[in-house]
């Protein structure tokens, strides 16, 4: 047991997973104690369990599931120009793949020629 308790030291910090897990489980126990004092029952098959949709009924389960196609609208909207450029670069065309490869090789050739080796 002691072996597991040694902390995992990094250059400027430390971290002990076992202790963290024990503390987490005990606080989970504390939360469960508070939680268990509450009321457990609820009316199972009634209208109560239907999702709240401002009083209306959701026709089918299909429509109750919000699809994920633009889940991070806020984030993508804020970085609109970045994402447009990114979509343009990913063409999926074999010629562009090879072109990128040759381009980066020649770029790195220049970089290594300039600073490649210690003078």
């Amino acid at each position, binding site marked *: 047991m002691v072996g597991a308790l040694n902390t995992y030291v990094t250059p400027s910090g430390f971290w002990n997973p076992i202790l963290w897990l024990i503390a987490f489980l005990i606080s989970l126990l504390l939360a469960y104690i508070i939680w268990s004092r509450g*009321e457990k029952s609820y*009316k199972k098959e009634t*209208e*109560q369990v*239907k999702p709240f949709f401002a*009083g*209306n009924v959701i026709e089918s389960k299909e429509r109750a599931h919000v699809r994920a196609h633009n889940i991070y609208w806020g984030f993508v909207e804020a970085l609109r120009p970045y994402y447009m450029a990114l979509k343009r670069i990913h063409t999926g065309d074999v010629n562009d793949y090879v072109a990128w490869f040759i381009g980066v090789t020649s770029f790195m050739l220049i970089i290594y020629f300039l600073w490649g080796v210690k003078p």
Partner: protein
Amino acid sequence: MVETEKKVMARKLGRLVRAVWIFNWFNSCGCTELLPVVSSRYDMERFGLIIVDNPKHADCLIITGYQTIKSIKRVVRIYNQMPDPKVVMALGSCPITGGMYWDSYNTIKRLSDYIPVHMYVPGCPPRPEAVFQAVGLLVEHVRKLKEEVSRK
């Protein structure tokens, strides 16, 4: 009611009364008079009453004004979706007797035909003091219930 059930109900209502979360169904003239209830002059929050935005969090459903045939379907569904110790407060004369729309073709006349109403607050529209008196009656009712249970 059986003895223990009354004790449980007394405890639940006792707790509910000190922190009533209201889901308002203001959809006609009743609500214009009720805005001061929330605002600083009458301030309902000093009794622990706050407006909540969905029925699943709410304890008290305040219905004001007339209910059309379309809207009563939603009111019934919302009433059913509220978790249990719940109270319904009907404000204004329209839910009591249909008010000035007593003979119109599409409003419903008596709210209690559709959902059990615990308190009626007459007035067209009712004044904020009337609303607080209704809540006071609820507190009174709970206090009486508690005494009765504790005497046994």
